[in-house]
């Protein structure tokens, strides 16, 4: 009961914090437009010159829709707290959480959800507009069940991406200067998750191999659930796998942080 009150306070502070940086968010959204635009022109040129109706099993309409949706979803699930956590570890900011009866993990997670709440709403509106437009143009066949599953998998993606980033953050206990490391890992994770373009581009074997990693379940999978690329049966299976990964990463993040925290304590802050 009291924990609920604590976490609702942290959530609300996360929301308020995000409102302090409204411009930051809108600029971020604007920033997401550029790669989408660039890809739009590239794909248009590619499809026009190939003379084929479908490439990598995507029709022109589907690939453009994928690009837009994946761009938005990557923006939505982006964590952006790596620097902050690394800074806490390196400069001893972690101390203030260690001496309080609160879990750092819970604190960060709930505050992250709080900071994302408004963006989630805005992105939902944007997505609504895009979905409406796409279905009006015939690029998307609208199904209620797909919309619902998309919303569910999106929350799952948010959680899974948080957990992956949180595990990566533990490296700050071992490496001292890691800002560039984070740039590279987040870019790599984004590509492997299908945030840039559909995974089919890498070839069938890569897609198969990636199915055994958590990455496709953060962007590629939710987007394909919505767009209708994923078969009905595969949707439920994918949802299960996504939550399987989430559980696994909860365990993994606990473990890495427990081990690392011992090191932190031993070396000092």
């Amino acid at each position, binding site marked *: 009961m009291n924990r609920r009150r604590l976490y609702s306070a942290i959530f609300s502070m996360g929301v308020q914090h995000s409102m302090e940086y409204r411009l930051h968010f809108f600029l971020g959204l604007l920033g997401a437009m550029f790669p989408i635009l660039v890809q739009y022109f590239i794909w248009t040129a590619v499809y026009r010159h190939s003379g084929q109706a479908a490439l990598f099993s995507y029709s022109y309409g589907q690939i453009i829709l994928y690009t837009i949706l994946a761009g938005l979803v990557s923006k939505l699930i982006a964590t952006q707290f790596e620097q902050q956590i690394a800074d806490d570890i390196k400069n001893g900011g972690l101390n203030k959480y260690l001496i309080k009866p609160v879990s750092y993990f819970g604190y960060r997670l709930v505050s992250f959800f709080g900071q994302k709440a408004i963006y989630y709403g805005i992105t939902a509106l944007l997505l609504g507009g895009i979905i409406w437009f796409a279905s009006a143009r015939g690029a998307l066949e609208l199904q209620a069940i797909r919309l619902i599953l998309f919303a569910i998998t999106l929350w799952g993606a948010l959680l899974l991406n948080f957990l992956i980033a949180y595990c990566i953050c533990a490296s700050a206990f071992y490496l001292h200067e890691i800002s560039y490391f984070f740039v590279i890992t987040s870019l790599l994770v984004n590509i492997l998750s299908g945030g840039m373009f559909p995974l089919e581009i890498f070839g069938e074997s890569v897609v198969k191999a990636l199915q055994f990693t958590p990455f496709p379940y953060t962007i590629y999978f939710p987007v394909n659930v919505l767009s209708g690329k994923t078969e009905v049966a595969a949707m439920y299976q994918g949802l299960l796998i996504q939550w399987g990964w989430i559980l696994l990463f909860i365990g993994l993040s606990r473990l890495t942080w427990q081990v690392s925290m011992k090191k932190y*304590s031993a070396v000092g802050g």
Partner: protein
Amino acid sequence: MDFIHVRELHKSFVYYRKEAGLRNSLKNLFVRKSLVKEAVKSVSFDIGPGECVGFLGPNGAGKTTTLKMLSGILYPTSGEANVLGYVPWERKNEFKRLFSMVMGQKNQLWWDLPASESIYLNKCIYDVDDHLYRRSLAELSEMLDVQDLLDVQVRRLSLGERMKMELIAALIHRPRLLYLDEPTIGLDFPSQKKVREFLKYYNEQFGATILLTSHYMKDVEDLCRRTIIINEGNLLYDGELHRINDRFGEQKIIKLQFSEPVTEQRLAKFGRIVRADDYSAVLELPKYRLKEVSRAVLDSFPTIDWTIEDVPIEDSISMLYHKESVG
């Protein structure tokens, strides 16, 4: 039972040395010479409930490391400690509810939000009853005179105002034990004074135990009867602050003023000359010679005014540091 019980606490860190220059940087990429720094070497002391103890020492003496061990942030290399019945580094939540730590150089408030939000967050973290929370907040903010600033974003507050908010946030759950690591660092004099008065009030009103480190002697003089001094990880002194002078064979200071010039040569035989010019002099001498010297300087010099004082505590403490590091 003692409130804080520390026995032979020891903490060493491994660190790496890099000599200046690119060549050594390259060398360090492959071979690093690891060295061990003993930040705290076998420190023991006991603190009773309600005591306010000043924890002094030069930079790098091991003060903060000791506080970090006593709050559970660091594991010691060896030794034992018991704080309020708990072993700090076991980090039990029940223990964490009993104390607070304020570091003058670190902040715990959310930078972009008003301080009231962070204070409310602490209320939730420590599970403070609503009624008690409202009362404490009103009381603490009035004492520190910051009621009007509670709803201002922390980043817009001055350093002094921010420190006051830090204190409110740290005390909202009425901790029985308070660790203060240089709480007045960088503050202007009125703010320093206010913070000191407030801490004194808190200590007296709630019987809270305080362990305070500071480089401002005034903080320690005003708040703490007892002082623990450490240097290079060793405990040098544990006792009442104003009795530090006893360690130096009861030295006294005589300040003299003359109506006519007096040369240093003539003064030298009476004691150590701390400072002297033609018309004034400051001498340091053992207490047992006080009477004899006073009589002699009054008789043999054109003295128009004189005072007898204790050696300033700062000087005694510096001597203490120096003596230990040399000997």
